């Protein structure tokens, strides 16, 4: 049996699935095991199937697979939904005393534990999930003591009695299995001395914002971006910052714009429908040359689509959205740790180039938790670049002969000096109307062209000055190239290993910069086949790359609302390689 273990708990929304999963994930992480979690949830508070899955190993894990070893089933539907993933050697923990007769296939080990009764014995039926965790510990050879720290973290605020009752509940579950079953399914969860941290993409984005000096955040709750706001509230204050829950997304981006004009590092986060609402002000941000970070955590669209499901459908919106022509940067983290680092970068780009920067993440990154060494987020490596933000005594260098501040001076690199309120003689007007270098409205054709060129020149400067690189893995000499963006990277890394075992070497390029983006011309020319992998129906990134390279690509698109799995990708890549190359 592999030491890779796939565990899940499933039931009705409102059954405490999420917190139970999180407790187990934290316990595994504290035991020095790597963890990768995924959530399957419905867009409702109570009712509707919901599941929390954990893949754990002593090696790094970064994707989900089609296999389930231990399943805690609180409902029959949990079993039915996961039948395909259960195998001989899987165990299903359920409560036979409850009012449903669990139908579990014969080849799967059914572990009937009176979860509710044992929980009541420990102090309350509400702890039945923790009893199940104890039972899972026994089946997997995992010391129940590791749960203790996670239980303290979860329930510490509610007093020691609650914590102790929960610890007792876990032990009751363990003991019941120990006394009533003689199981040997071959699972033995090793532990290590590593200390890992466990966090999701939304949290990493929020943490990156704090590290980067973000002081103001305005947002409106929307799945799956709300966690960014919830993370920042309660933490940003210790740095003198503030979060406003705005009345809508229009307000949120305008508040963030206002704070940025005041000189604060400022951010808003939303999902696709919110990006639509923000589009008007997005143009103003760019035209007024205001530094602003806008996070789009993508979910299935269009319209309200499937709010709790994965998609990478907003690429075109973030690259091209807004009327007129808008210079912008678009960065897209491909892993959870990159959610942190790309957010830090985004703040620097925003201020250096005085322009809006999109951080485009997807639901799979946002809600998935993964373990990392704490040094992955080495705060000493965080650099802050405030660009041309002037010192008070530098303002005078940028006045015209009438003493007006040249806020939109058409410099060679397109980047103007920046004065913020309080700076002597820096007072100036900014506007979404076309304006001259003083910020005053104009319809003068020459000035118009000068300002449009000036703004676009910033992008050229950034293209030349920054490294818009990509990550590469797999076999660098392989003839076949797979290109991806966003959260697909994790599954691809594991797919590559599976393909290697089958003698199908591929080279993978994962692109975290969508605009400006790396030049892939040479890589495309060198490859026999190029396959672009993305979670959308039309292949938005594939279109962009075909446009960039003038070369046709093959496409793997998934738009079921579920993220790619490693084994599924390996199969699809093999199939695509055997297909005819599309006509040039």
């Amino acid at each position, binding site marked *: 049996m592999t030491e890779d273990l796939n565990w899940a708990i499933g039931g009705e929304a409102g059954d405490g699935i999420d917190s139970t999963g999180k407790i187990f994930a934290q316990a595994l*992480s*504290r035991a020095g095991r790597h963890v990768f979690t995924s959530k399957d949830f419905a867009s409702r508070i109570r009712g509707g199937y919901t599941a929390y899955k954990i893949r754990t190993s002593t090696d790094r894990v970064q994707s989900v697979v089609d296999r389930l070893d231990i399943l805690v089933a609180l409902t029959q539907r949990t079993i039915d939904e996961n039948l395909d993933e259960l195998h001989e050697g899987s165990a299903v923990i359920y409560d036979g005393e409850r009012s449903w007769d669990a139908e579990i296939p014969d080849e799967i080990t059914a572990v009937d534990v009176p979860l509710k009764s044992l929980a009541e014995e420990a102090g309350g039926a509400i702890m039945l999930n923790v009893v199940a965790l104890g039972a899972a510990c026994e089946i997997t050879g995992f010391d129940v003591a590791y749960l203790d720290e996670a239980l303290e973290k979860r329930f510490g605020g509610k007093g020691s009695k609650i914590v102790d009752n929960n610890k007792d509940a876990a032990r009751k579950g363990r003991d019941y299995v120990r006394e009533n079953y003689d199981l040997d399914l071959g699972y033995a969860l090793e532990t290590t001395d590593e200390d890992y*941290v*466990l*966090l999701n993409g939304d*949290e990493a984005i929020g*943490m990156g914002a*704090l*590290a980067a*000096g973000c*002081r*103001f955040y*305005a947002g409106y709750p929307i799945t799956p971006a709300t966690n960014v706001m919830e993370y920042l509230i309660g933490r940003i*204050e210790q740095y*003198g*910052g*503030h979060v*406003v829950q*705005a*009345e809508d997304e*229009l*307000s949120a981006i*305008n*508040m*963030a*714009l*206002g*704070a*940025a*004009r*005041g*000189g*604060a*590092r*400022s951010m808003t986060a939303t999902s696709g429908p919110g990006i639509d609402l923000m589009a*008007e*002000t997005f143009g*103003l941000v760019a035209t007024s040359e205001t530094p602003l970070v806008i996070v789009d955590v993508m979910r299935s669209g269009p319209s309200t689509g499937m709010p709790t499901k994965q998609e990478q459908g907003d690429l075109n919106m973030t690259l091209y959205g807004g009327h007129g022509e808008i210079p912008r940067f678009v960065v897209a983290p491909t892993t959870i740790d990159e959610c942190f680092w790309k957010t830090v970068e985004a703040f620097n780009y925003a201020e250096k180039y005085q322009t809006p920067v999109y951080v485009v993440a997807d639901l799979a990154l946002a809600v998935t938790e993964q373990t990392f060494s*704490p040094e992955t*987020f080495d*705060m000493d490596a*965080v*650099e*802050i670049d405030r660009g041309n933000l002037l010192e008070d005594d530098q303002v005078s260098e940028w006045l015209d002969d*009438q003493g007006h501040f040249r806020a939109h001076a058409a410099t060679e690199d397109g980047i103007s000096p920046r004065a*913020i*309120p*309080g700076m*002597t*003689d*820096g*007072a*100036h*007007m*900014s*506007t*979404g*109307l076309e304006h001259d270098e003083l910020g*005053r*409205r104009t319809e003068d054709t020459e000035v118009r062209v000068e300002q449009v060129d000036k703004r676009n020149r910033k992008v050229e400067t950034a293209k030349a000055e920054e490294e818009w690189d990509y990550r590469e893995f797999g076999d660098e000499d392989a003839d076949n190239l797979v290109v991806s963006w966003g959260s697909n990277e994790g599954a691809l890394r594991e797919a590559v290993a599976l393909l290697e075992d089958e003698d199908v070497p591929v080279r993978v390029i994962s692109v975290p910069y969508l605009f400006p983006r790396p030049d892939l011309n040479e890589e495309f020319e060198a490859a026999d086949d190029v396959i672009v992998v993305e979670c959308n129906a039309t292949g938005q990134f594939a279109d962009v790359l075909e446009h960039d390279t003038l070369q046709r690509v093959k496409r793997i698109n998934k738009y079921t609302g579920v993220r790619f799995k490693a084994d599924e990708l390996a199969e699809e890549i093999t199939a695509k390689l055997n297909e005819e190359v599309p006509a040039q």
Partner: protein
Amino acid sequence: MSSQSEVRFTDFKSDKQPTWCPGCGDFGTMNGMMKALANTGNDPDNTFLVAGIGCSGKIGTYMHSYAIHGVHGRALPVATGVKMARPDIEVMAAGGDGDGYSIGAGHFVHATRRNVDMTYVVMDNRIYGLTKGQASPTSRSDFETSTTPEGSQQPPVNPLALALASGATFIAQSFASDAIRHAEIIEEAIEHDGFGFVNVFSPCVTFNDVDTYDYFRDSLVDLKEEDHDRHDYEAAKGVILDADKEYQGVMYQNENSIPYHERHGVTENMAEIPDGAPENAMDLVREFY
């Protein structure tokens, strides 16, 4: 920054000539704003003006200060962001009745209830001027315009009542042509700790022949000359909901107003951040153990 004694209201004037129609109420509204800013000890370098869209929104161009001319209806959220980032800066938002009570009505309600420390001046001419004469949310229901040829048949918004219902802590109304009173009222709004809302009758001489200078001159009742207690909520309700008269002056002021940023403990200039990640930032990571 110039010292207080040197600041004159003309320091807030830009050298751009307004393109407002001769006789437009916005001239008087703006002059009063500039006087009030100077009288309260502000200067262009510590003042931020957020302008809306429309004739009134052009004010940002004709005044001199740190300023932004935003998108239609969104002046208040922008001003909120400025004030939160910079509690040390005087923030003023200005727009028209369409900007504030139509497209921006939602923001008006929420900026009011948040009690953000700023002054909000609405130049209310009861018409859409810049788009050449359509009905506005404060147009009378029988007022005929290009989009309401038989009158709108809808009651106008009462912005003062809307503010009161939203929990406003300072509600006032002034008249652009009554220069001294107008400046005085704006000054009080600036000095109010919280959201200082002033609805200014600012007549449109081109498209509105009903709500004219003469109309306001003849009909406005000044609360200064009435026995009105602005701290009395019921009295405020009385004058605000009075269907027979229109008033100028301060209708309501809540003595216990605590501005949003103070309520949330925001005191720092958020523009100032360290060169790298803040001290003890690794604690942010350790939380995830």
